[in-house]
């Protein structure tokens, strides 16, 4: 019988954590690509919205979308 797969993280699993706390551009790209373009999509009567505006510039209170989503919505794919 194969060993039971552990389901809780171990101490060493997050030593490499490279989320988006810092200003590392690679981390920022990875954050935006995941949070805005991936994850479970729930549709139907549930509203899915990123404020309904697709812009790619960054700025105070600006709307963010990943480049791939923006290009798709602008018909550039």
């Amino acid at each position, binding site marked *: 019988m194969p060993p039971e797969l552990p389901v809780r993280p171990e101490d060493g*699993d997050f030593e490499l954590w490279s989320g988006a706390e810092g200003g590392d551009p690679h981390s920022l790209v990875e954050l935006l690509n995941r949070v805005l373009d991936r994850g479970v*999509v729930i549709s139907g009567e549930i509203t899915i919205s990123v404020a309904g505006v697709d812009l790619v510039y*960054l700025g105070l209170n600006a709307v963010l979308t990943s480049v791939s989503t923006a290009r798709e919505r602008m018909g550039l794919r």
Partner: protein
Amino acid sequence: MPAPALLGYCVRRASEPPVPAGLTGVDGAAVRAVEAAGLAVWLSEAGEGPATLARVRDFDAVVREALLTATPLPLRYGTRFGDEEEARRVLRERAEEFEESLGRVAGRVEMGVRALWRAAPEGGGEAGAPRAAPRSGREYLELRRAAMARDDAGRARAAALLDRLSAHFPDLPAVRTPGDGAGVAGSVAHLVRFGEVELYRNSFESARADLAEADLVLIGPWAPYSFV
């Protein structure tokens, strides 16, 4: 018409550890769990306004907090529910799908590698864009054909690089994302078991030594955004 009231973060099994006391999410709103069908969705009151960088970071911080105790299914940012009953309805209606996904990612985190070309490859950019102003329609078509051939060659080169990269991570569930045709060759995301992240880093170092034509960036750990 106001936007729906609750912002969703992730789905977990109801039997897993609860939302940590005092956890806040986007705009400082308190995070709580709503349960149905043996599942729980983490959510908070949703404010108005666009997806700013701060809000995106706050969202991911909640998902990462969930990941510390058990692998969640991250929702896409901006998923909203009108009220708690609507959230419960979604859990009930999609319980089978969520259970299958949770089983697939249980005990794992998402790791990845992004590959950046050290020297810009020939081609890339918009296909068909001529490099110099053509003097005739025929010349324009010839230039366009050459540009498309360069783009094809660039894509093939990137695919070959990602194949060699992937060979360093055999037997791991993988999602490949092509690059932008210019500086980024592409990236590969993997599902890695808890406790094997260090092994993954070792494989990354091996890949970095092998792929001299690209700079590799280690990514993760993340919640399994790419595998849901």
